[in-house]
């Protein structure tokens, strides 16, 4: 944790990802096709990180990319998809084949796990999951337990706290103190970052003015590494900034259905790109980005 009010220099994507070690536990703040930290995920893939544990409340393109690229050994998630563009093909395939260890939860039980971690609790009671096969499987692995409230006698399920090593989120804006302004619905980002030991935040813009305190979602004292990467969530959407690019997401979905095509996708778009701007150059045009931007502004 940083000192209060310390000026925060931004770092490069490469420098940010350098702090992630093989075997680390990372938490992702995206959801399906929105607000994914794609720029960081690409760099994790380029740096060939291995054996990561990834926790994400609702699985997204970020998660599918990392699993497909072989960076992940274990996931905690509450289900997920790429909305109507398709399924998380790599996540699903890896669960079917048993090539990753997957602990499946519901959305709220994942949020409660982050909340427990954020508050320094080791577990959290919840009234979801009861009677489901989700619970049956978690219980068989010692990941959850049924429990009665010692005061009221009510039935609960206990789920374990999540304490990730590093949280990775993409947001719209930060100020020079590292205070982060997250526009739109917050999902579970506030719980997830507070549960994590270290926080990497990628933003579209860094403002030289200090953000008004009402706008701060993640205070600068929590942020360890701040990265500036315009369009860093592309091809997923970012509220107020740009709409998702359906063409590229569809290309991804098609590529992720077939290992050979996926290998090609990885090489062409990620591994052979020096940085995220090169990925953007290969994937889209300025004209199209301007269009996606204007669409998002109209939706505000």
């Amino acid at each position, binding site marked *: 944790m940083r000192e209060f009010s310390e000026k925060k220099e931004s770092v490069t994507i490469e420098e940010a990802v350098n702090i992630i070690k093989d075997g680390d536990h990372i938490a992702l703040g995206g959801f399906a096709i929105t607000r994914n930290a794609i720029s960081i995920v690409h760099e994790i893939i380029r740096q060939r990180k291995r054996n990561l544990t990834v926790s994400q409340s609702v699985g997204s393109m970020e998660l599918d990319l990392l699993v497909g690229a072989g960076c992940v050994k274990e996931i905690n998630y509450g289900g997920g998809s790429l909305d109507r563009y398709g399924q998380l093909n790599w996540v699903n395939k890896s669960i*079917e084949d048993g090539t990753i260890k997957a602990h499946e939860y519901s*959305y709220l039980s994942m949020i409660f796990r982050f909340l427990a971690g954020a508050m320094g609790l080791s577990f959290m009671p919840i009234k979801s999951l009861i009677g489901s096969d989700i619970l049956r499987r978690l219980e068989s692995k010692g990941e959850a337990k049924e429990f009665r409230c010692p005061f009221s006698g009510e039935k609960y399920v206990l789920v374990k706290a999540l304490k990730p090593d590093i949280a990775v989120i993409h947001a719209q804006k930060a100020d020079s103190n590292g205070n982060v302004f997250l526009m739109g*619905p917050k*999902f579970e*980002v506030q719980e997830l970052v507070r549960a994590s030991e270290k926080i990497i935040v990628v933003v579209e813009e860094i403002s030289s003015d200090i953000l008004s305190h009402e706008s701060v979602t993640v205070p600068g004292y929590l942020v360890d590494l701040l990265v500036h990467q315009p369009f860093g969530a592309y091809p997923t959407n970012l509220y107020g900034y740009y709409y998702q690019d359906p063409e590229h997401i569809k290309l991804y979905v098609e590529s992720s259905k077939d290992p050979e095509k996926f290998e090609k996708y990885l090489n062409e778009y990620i591994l052979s790109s020096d940085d995220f701007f090169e990925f953007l150059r290969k994937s889209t045009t300025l004209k199209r980005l301007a269009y996606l931007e204007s669409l998002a502004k109209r939706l505000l």
Partner: protein
Amino acid sequence: MVKYSTEELMVVTGARKIKDGNNVMVGIGLPMASAILAKKTHAPNANIFLELGVLNPSSSDFGVGLADIKAWQGAELLTSALDVLGMLLHSGKIDIGFLGALEVDELGNINTTQVELEGGKIKHFTGSGGGNDIASLAKRIVVVMRHQKRKLRKKVSYITSPGYIDGKKRQEAGLRGGDIEIVTDMAVFKFNVKIKKMTISSIHSGVNLDDVVENTGFQLVIPPKVDITPEPTESELKILRDEIPREIYTK
């Protein structure tokens, strides 16, 4: 008498399950059209919540899913998922939740996680998202789905979201609610918990009872007199057609 499509009937049937002042949890698709229609007709004070932290969007195009920024347009409140799923749903303040399903069984248990292919191989799908939470914790549940034999099964291959589980009372199991209805393109179903079975509540006008039975993968309970699903009124249809884009409920 006015003519209407099956989708329009399903939207109207869903809308009528919502009471004025209800807190409603929906995803995108047909149930969203139901919720909007309810607000525009008999339930102007209903609140529509999206699980990731959105209240009362006023979109005319919900795009491809909950994560599409089109679905949040004009919202009255953009908040957190903990606020909506935790402090509303978990605390018992969501009156009605709408869910979809890959499969539903005769006890109302829902599978959105996997299907068993021939030869026993498993194909994994979306999983729970907020589905399990809504099914466990909303006071009333409406499942909206296509009526196919392989989707309405005696037993689901995986319980993602609980209905009546193995037939015991939901409260005894530790779950809330206990009022579950299924709306398909053929009929509406409720549950008779005493005999642990899905029961026909009504069939849609023009649908043959034999077809409903034939397209269901288990034995339905059929009441002595089978009602016809109440038809949309002219004013409901007018509002639906004039004010709610078809793409919301037909995509």
